[in-house]
């Protein structure tokens, strides 16, 4: 019997090791897997590469993970939301590496990794500093930059409902980065509001099929 349900948040993040790369869903506060991040903080893994659109705000969640010195490298598109104080301090002090990627390129690089594609040409960033050092090409009269797939060891994702096969729905625009991160990570770990009986999510309403998911866990487990 397929059973991807982890009994607790703690169990869900247990396989994350020092030095791992971890994708974290979310766009600002929307779609952010708060409970899984807290579990990761409690778990203690460090020297992490975190791949997430933003770099945390305030003093909790991702910002706290950063403040505790657990993150060696941040890969994101926009680490300067208002309230991203912790990241700014670490960055100015030279205590964290930053790979800055246009958001669409970040999404597409993750999708390429999940979809088994190699590098691809995108027009985004052509003629800007983002393109420096990268292969460039004119195609159909337009400039393109070659970008590589972006995979990760783990993804921490916020879903809405899941069943024991790992079939997932998301809540409103909390969907966001979830689907591509689940594809691009070797081990996708998803927190949900509710785990429902198999068959309850209509087949056409499943947004991310269980094939991409390793573990699901209730956010209050």
């Amino acid at each position, binding site marked *: 019997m397929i059973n991807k349900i982890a009994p607790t948040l703690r169990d869900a993040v247990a396989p994350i090791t020092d030095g791992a790369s971890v994708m974290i869903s979310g766009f600002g506060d*929307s779609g952010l897997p708060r409970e899984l991040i807290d579990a990761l903080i409690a778990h203690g893994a460090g020297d992490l590469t975190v791949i997430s659109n933003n770099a945390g705000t305030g003093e909790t969640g991702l910002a706290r993970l950063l403040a505790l010195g657990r993150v060696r490298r941040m890969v994101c598109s926009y680490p300067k939301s208002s309230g991203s104080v912790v990241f700014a301090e670490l960055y100015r002090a030279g205590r964290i590496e930053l790979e800055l990627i*246009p958001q669409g390129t970040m999404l597409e690089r993750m999708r390429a990794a999940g979809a088994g594609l190699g590098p691809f040409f995108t027009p985004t960033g052509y003629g800007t500093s983002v393109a420096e050092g990268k292969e460039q090409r004119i195609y159909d009269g337009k400039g393109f930059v070659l970008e590589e797939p972006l995979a990760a060891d783990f993804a921490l994702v916020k879903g809405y409902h899941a069943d024991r096969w790992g079939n997932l729905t998301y809540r409103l625009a909390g969907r966001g980065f979830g689907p591509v991160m689940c594809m691009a990570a070797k081990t996708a770990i998803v927190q949900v509001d509710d785990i429902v009986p198999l068959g309850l999510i209509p087949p056409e309403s499943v947004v991310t099929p269980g094939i991409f998911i390793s573990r699901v866990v209730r956010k209050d487990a």
Partner: protein
Amino acid sequence: MTVPPKLSRDRVAQLTAADIAPGSYINIGLGIPTLVAKYLDPAKEIVLHSENGILGLEGLAEGDEGDEDLINASKQRLQLVRGSSIVEQALSFAMMRGGHLDATILGAFQVAMNGDIASWSTGAEDDIPGIGGAMDLVVGARRVIVVMEHLARDGRPKLLSACTYPLTGKGVVTNIYTDMAIIDVVPGRGFVVRGIAEGLSREALQAATDAPLAYADEVAVLSAR
């Protein structure tokens, strides 16, 4: 000497909004652009896109707290309109990069006469860089509309022969709405003024612009309200 006449932020937003065709799909960025939404005629059914995967947004009703999973790129809470849709973010960026948006309306630090735009970094040493979705928007939207003040806070021109800050996109801007003028970026001609604030002389506009200005056959006089 009198202060040169300038249009209010709201008036600039209103002029921009008037120029969006009915049924357009548009993305609206931070700064003055957020005001544009206020002036869109509901009868025109212009559909607002937000990069996190939403098509069809509007401001919250008075007193409504909104929902943390219904926000726009500025992280403001909004609500869905009738006919809205929510998709994954990769598909949202496919809309942006793939030429499906009729227009993106965004602010900028600098715009050059060849359509280059600098909007994400001043290149300052202690600057925390952040790109977000801007590079995808400017490379993909059918029209790239910059809405901004004509001069920087320190009084320096923001419309230039060439940008000095790091670029967001190369040769992409199509129209500029400022508190002094409406200017099209025309390949081969550069900045072409098609509207000028009432009471503002062409000399004064040129003095505020660090690139040569051409004028359209018909130049509208933009009243203060």
